[in-house]
């Protein structure tokens, strides 16, 4: 049986590692290291290879949750991790400098995968920066000719992470 997996990607510090930790039944395997650059101002560590977590499905199969590094210099990991994934969750840090620009990076990079599978977008840290608002994200997607669910989320709340994954599954089913 093929590996069953979902991938979390998106901008640096948007909360991929946090989101996977919220769902995983096992301690998340993570490759966070101390940041040595401007990232430090935001948070102490950053993912350089992958995050990995697991959930057991009712029939005993494992759902594997992979997180990518956020920073674009690690883009070679993105393709590796996406191979064979059921779908993609893109997290965007709304408190970053150019959130829509960030989103575009991932949409462009994963365009083929998104068309083959699907994606759900979670905009995080909206409590820190209200703009752009969700309407701006939806407009942006329309311009890119994509119809994908967009949520405002706080990945520290498990229910928000569950919502994204359930939606991803619903998008795959219908």
């Amino acid at each position: 049986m093929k590996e069953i997996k979902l991938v979390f990607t998106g901008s640096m510090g948007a909360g991929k590692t946090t989101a996977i930790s919220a769902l995983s039944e096992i301690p998340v395997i993570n490759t966070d290291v101390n940041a040595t650059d401007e990232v430090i101002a935001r948070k102490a560590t950053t993912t350089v290879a992958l995050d990995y977590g697991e959930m057991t499905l009712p029939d005993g199969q494992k759902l594997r949750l992979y997180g990518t590094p956020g920073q674009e210099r690690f883009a070679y990991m993105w393709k590796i991790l996406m191979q064979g994934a059921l779908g993609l969750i893109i997290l965007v840090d709304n408190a970053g400098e150019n959130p829509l620009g960030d989103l575009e990076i991932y949409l462009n990079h994963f365009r083929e995968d998104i068309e083959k599978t699907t994606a759900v977008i979670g905009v995080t840290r909206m409590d820190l920066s209200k703009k752009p608002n969700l309407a701006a994200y939806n407009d942006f997607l329309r311009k890119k000719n994509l119809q994908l669910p967009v949520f405002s989320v706080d990945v520290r709340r498990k229910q928000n992470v569950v919502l994204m994954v359930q939606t991803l599954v619903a998008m795959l089913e219908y």
Partner: protein
Amino acid sequence: MQYILSTYALEKSDRLFMKSMIEMANKKFGLQWRLDDANGQVTVVDMDTQEGRTFWETNRAQKTLIAYAEKDTYQATFFLEKPLKVQLVTQLLKKLADQINPISISPIIPQIAPVSPPPISNGIAGYKPEKYLVGLLKKIIADGKPYTLQLAGTPALHVVPEDQMCYTVDMDLSEPNPVQKVWFKSTANHFSKQPIDLSKLNLIRDDFTSYDISAFLWLSTLQSSNGVLLAGHSLTNPIRLKEYPNFSILPYDPFHLQMAAFMLKNTASIPRISANIRQPMPTVINFYNACAVLDLVNIEKTAKETPEATKTISLEKKGLLQNIFQRLMR
């Protein structure tokens, strides 16, 4: 003439609901019930607890008791069905008031619950948001000034359009309790509406919990639609979601996610959505109304419906996806 009700072995939340329902019944219908566990003339007993059943056995001969349970298996003179519903409680209180005191004090009672709308018939539309809470909210948003809305016996709702927020007591919008459900269904004319003094705004912001107004528009439409399509809309028009509802703010049931996914990816009429998602038409209509109130749908009069079977996935994959969905419900 006063009447006193007491409770026995009720869950705390049930007792609280009971209290607010009594207030609602009193205010609306001129009854004079109050809750006092020590001096009750009549006692509501939770029969689904051992404690309650014992109390029942020892006291049924001397006292007037109301059996509160899921099923009426006690041959009780007075039975109240679980979970608590305003209408049932009200009727019961009225009936009791009549029997305890020979002088009938109850006036002719108007219906508290929303006027039951006509059933859907051959696609002729009829849900009018302006008749419900959602209409009041929309009007306040359009006016742009803050107002307090109040339904007798329930907490006030402070609506502040400039914040795009409502302020009220703590509540769990994803699981409204029976009183709140009735509240969301209530017709506009049951609410009083008071402008909020601008000097009080900051107090309100500090003292109450804030909620996105859209969540209130959404819930009141979902709750009050009763399966009746929005006036002026047609069941046969193909429709499509412009965007996926932001369910991190809008309360949802799991099947709403599936409905929304289908409606985002397909252009289809309501009957077809209902068939594809395997949800009854009224459910789809309620959802459609709520999406339309938030301006999330396109009515595609000219567009063609997405052909059937645009998407075929293997049974195995479908099973897998359902497994994942189920796992996340825990």
